[in-house]
């Protein structure tokens, strides 16, 4: 090895050692500075900091905002916030937890299981975290705990707000409910609002409560408090008030809604009442209902299971989520499609012999013996199927479905409810895409009487009826105002349909309810200014085989409930100056004229009179049974009476 090279290596090695020692020196110096700082903070200023730590610990606490109140169109309260008296406990402050809990349970009656759960939760969390031990205490229990507070270390009585639905089940399908913040909620919504960390905070989980969560929730406030070494609040330094959520006023009329739910009760049914002029939804009922107050604190699984297994499906909103073959209530759309295409003369007749042969299939009319000669008006009034089979072959499915969509069927309507169904207005393309088969003429015939692939929700049928009645392209509206301000709605335009053709359809619908042979004649009203026009529908949920037809079709009453026909009715009133449109579905109710039309009539009459309708409106022969039914119904106490549900009385959501 060359000497010079060796020296070089030794040189650089020595230089490295020098630099390493410099680095080491720098590091040691820095450590001395750090140690000096420790000395300064922990020795010289220790007393100052200890004082700060003991007596002046500032704690920032979030204040929950009050959730916006929900009103009906006239100011009746549908959802508000009730004080919730509760007890929280801090393990650290309690000393012996079991002793304190034993003492507490001697003062107020506490649920054993819940107490154990609270105890477990307290033990599994850091000792300074407050845990709710009991809530929904009565005022008396709450006062007792407050008075005995000195004997209960670590126990704090406080008042929170909890959602309250004074009208209970009537609005479960509209207002929905709030519930506790769950992990699932946090995961699925990605919501990071700090307000969610407040214990027992409630968020909208369903229907309006969920869909308008943003406006109803409000913003958290905060307060700075001084806490002592034990974590007890010594004094409040300052606070910024929580910003209350916006109040929401719905277009629903609580009394009409109440009547509608009462009228549907006992059935598995849905009904929608709409203002034909502006689209306001005045009632949106679905039976059976359930009490939304059950959900507010997390529903017990036994109740949930009962609701879930009920064959009448109380949790489902039949008015917006339910999809049904519209049956004969679809016929107006078919007839209008034919009229608009100029394919038929309203006076031209078709012969109904009870059925029509198409290829090797026979399509039956609901009336086995046939209707004889039918024109447009009688075809609607008597709901002759063969007339529509004939029409449908001429018009074709594309024109029918285009007309259906123009009238809001098979179209998703934007209302702030959960799971609003889109429905189906089938086309050739639709069948190919969804069923993988080409469209055949038989499908068109089925569609012409609202069977086959056609599916609509009662909401869509109500929109259809409102548009037929008014000739306006009304969209359903559920929100009347938010914080007193009407939301922006597009101006309502006229439908692009020949008014003369619409008039013909209305004439037919008038005949249905008032004509001598009308299918809904039994559900007519008799006061001139309160007459109804409508259309019955009966939709099959099963196929009737040729063999059954030969042996005689089984009567609905003889079938098990879930295989009976659905009963439908759509209508509007007053017939000559339409103001209210309605659609009613009674699941497996049998015939539309027997099961659905009377319900629709009663609800329409209530809407027109804004009260329980007078007996004079009914045909004389029915007055006694109507009276009996109304007596048996449990309705809200009259508006303005002392026991009427709370209201702000102004008809607007905020004075």
């Amino acid at each position, binding site marked *: 090895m060359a000497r010079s090279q060796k020296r070089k290596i030794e040189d650089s090695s020595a230089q490295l050692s020098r630099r390493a020692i410099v680095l080491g020196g720098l*590091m040691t110096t820095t450590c001395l500075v750090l140690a000096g700082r420790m000395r300064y*903070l922990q020795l010289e200023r220790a007393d100052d900091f200890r004082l700060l730590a003991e007596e002046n610990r500032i704690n920032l606490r979030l204040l929950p905002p009050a959730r916006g109140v929900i009103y009906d169109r006239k100011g009746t309260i549908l959802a508000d916030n009730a004080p919730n008296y509760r007890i929280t406990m801090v393990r650290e402050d309690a000393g012996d937890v079991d002793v304190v809990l034993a003492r507490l349970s001697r003062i107020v009656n506490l649920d054993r299981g819940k107490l154990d759960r609270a105890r477990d939760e307290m033990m599994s969390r850091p000792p300074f975290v407050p845990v709710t031990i009991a809530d929904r205490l009565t005022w008396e229990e709450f006062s007792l705990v407050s008075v005995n507070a000195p004997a209960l270390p670590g126990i704090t009585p406080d008042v929170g707000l909890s959602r309250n639905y004074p009208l209970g089940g009537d609005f479960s399908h509209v207002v929905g409910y709030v519930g506790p913040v769950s992990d699932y909620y946090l995961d699925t919504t990605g919501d990071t609002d700090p307000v969610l960390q407040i214990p027992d905070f409630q968020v909208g989980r369903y229907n309006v409560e969920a869909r308008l969560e943003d406006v109803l929730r409000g913003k958290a406030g905060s307060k700075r408090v001084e806490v002592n070494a034990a974590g007890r609040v010594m004094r409040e330094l300052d606070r910024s008030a929580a910003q209350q959520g916006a109040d929401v006023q719905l277009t629903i009329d609580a009394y009409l809604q109440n009547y509608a739910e009462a009228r549907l009760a006992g059935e598995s049914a849905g009904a929608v009442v709409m203002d034909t002029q502006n689209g306001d939804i005045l009632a949106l009922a679905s039976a059976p209902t359930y009490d939304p107050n059950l959900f507010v604190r997390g529903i017990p699984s036994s109740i949930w299971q009962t609701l879930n297994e009920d064959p009448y499906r109380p949790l489902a909103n039949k008015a917006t989520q339910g999809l049904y073959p519209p049956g004969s209530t679809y016929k107006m759309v078919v007839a209008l499609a034919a009229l608009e295409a100029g394919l038929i003369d309203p006076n031209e007749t078709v012969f109904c012999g009870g059925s029509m042969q198409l290829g090797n299939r026979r399509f039956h009319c609901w009336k086995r013996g046939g209707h004889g000669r039918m024109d447009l008006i009688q075809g609607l009034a008597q709901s002759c199927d063969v007339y529509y089979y004939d029409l449908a072959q001429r018009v074709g499915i594309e024109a029918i479905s285009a007309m259906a969509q123009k009238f809001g069927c098979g179209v998703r309507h934007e209302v702030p409810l959960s799971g609003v169904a889109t429905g189906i207005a089938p086309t050739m393309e639709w069948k190919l895409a969804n069923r993988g088969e080409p469209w055949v003429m038989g499908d068109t015939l089925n569609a012409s009487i609202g069977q086959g692939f056609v599916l609509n929700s009662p909401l869509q049928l109500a929109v259809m009826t409102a548009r037929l009645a008014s000739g306006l392209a009304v969209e359903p509206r559920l929100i009347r105002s938010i914080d007193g301000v009407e939301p922006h709605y597009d101006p309502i335009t006229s439908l692009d349909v020949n008014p003369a053709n619409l008039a013909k359809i209305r004439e037919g619908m008038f005949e249905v309810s008032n004509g001598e042979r009308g299918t809904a004649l039994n559900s007519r009203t008799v006061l001139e200014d309160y007459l109804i026009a409508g259309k019955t529908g009966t939709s099959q949920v099963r196929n009737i085989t040729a063999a059954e037809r030969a042996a005689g079709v089984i009567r609905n009453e003889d079938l098990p409930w879930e295989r009976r026909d659905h009963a439908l009715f759509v209508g509007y009133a007053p017939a000559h100056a339409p103001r209210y449109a309605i659609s009613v579905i009674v699941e497996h109710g049998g015939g539309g004229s027997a099961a659905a039309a009377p319900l629709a009539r009663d609800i329409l009459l209530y809407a027109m009179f804004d009260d329980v309708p007078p007996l004079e409106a009914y045909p004389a022969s029915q007055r006694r049974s109507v009276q009996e039914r109304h007596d048996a119904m449990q309705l809200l106490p009259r508006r303005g009476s002392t026991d009427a549900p709370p209201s702000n009385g102004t008809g607007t959501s905020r004075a």
Partner: protein
Amino acid sequence: MSFSLYQINTMPSGWRKVLYLNWPLVLLLSIVACIGFMMLYSVAGGSMEPWVMPQAQRFAIGMTAMFVIAMIPIAFWRLVSGLGYAVSLILLLYVEFFGTVGMGAQRWLDLGPFRLQPSELAKITIVMVLAAYYARIDSAKKSHPIYILPPLVLILIPVFLTLKQPDLGTAVLLLLGGGAVVFAAGVHWAYFAALIASGGAAVLAVFASRGTEWQLLKDYQFRRIDTFIDPTQDPLGAGYHITQSQIALGSGGFSGRGFMEGTQSRLNFLPEKHTDFIFTTLAEEFGFIGASSLLFVYLLIVALCIWTALSTRDRFASLLSLGIAATFFLYFAINMAMVMGLAPVVGVPLPLVSYGGTAMMVLLAAFGLVQSAHIHRPR
């Protein structure tokens, strides 16, 4: 005597390597880790969950990795230095585009059961690649401007990438850690003078960029610097951490409140009480005695690494050990300075104590390299 014979004769092999391990270093690292477990147990309110168990598992994995790395000859590690550096750069680029965003910054790579933070890896690979570079080039040319350029680029690429994440703490660590190796290699001191001057200029540039479109730091980072300069300006906002951290620290006094007796640090006043701010819990519960003891143990670890560097004649091993010592030092010095209000809150963990998987495992792996240098040193 040929060179290879010299190697065989002077280097331990097989199980004898275990004897040559730097056992005092192993002991000191375990002491620090145990302090960490105790503190994590305390901030969890006296519970092994959620932090102690995972941390202990990672410590076990990290220690195993350290032993395995120590057994492999240091020459091998010199050969793979470049590769390791390249891999960490690729990972850094990968998080830049596909990483998981956590706490407002993009730092993690989701690997299923655990998350990898490539910037932690980069802190070691930068030291390795620089040590390998200076072991390879002719020592006489090391201060020539052309030979200064490669290390400068090697340092600045990961610095730039971590700044973009944005992770100011790591960027500073990379810069200073890399700088320490270059300094130890014997590059002329004038460069460092120039660097410090330009560093000052860079700080000015960062502040000048504030509010403009090409702002170099995120708003929250600027706010942290503001409140570092004057914590009282926003005592419940960003200055809150610093104020509360100092109250907790100071209230510990000389001997502390006792294990599990801390009130400040466990009262949720501090947001990252199990990670960046864990030192406050230690200082509160064990006082000046505990805090300065930890500082002393840390300094001993650094000293052992420097001793390894001085006792080996392998230039790569020596520079590597120094670089790792410097990086480790930077970790705890920046963290302690930060919680004691001497440096802005930049997000550097307390090494081997703060909860966090990648940092712990990477550091233990790095000590494995020091051990390898120690075992395989030509004597």
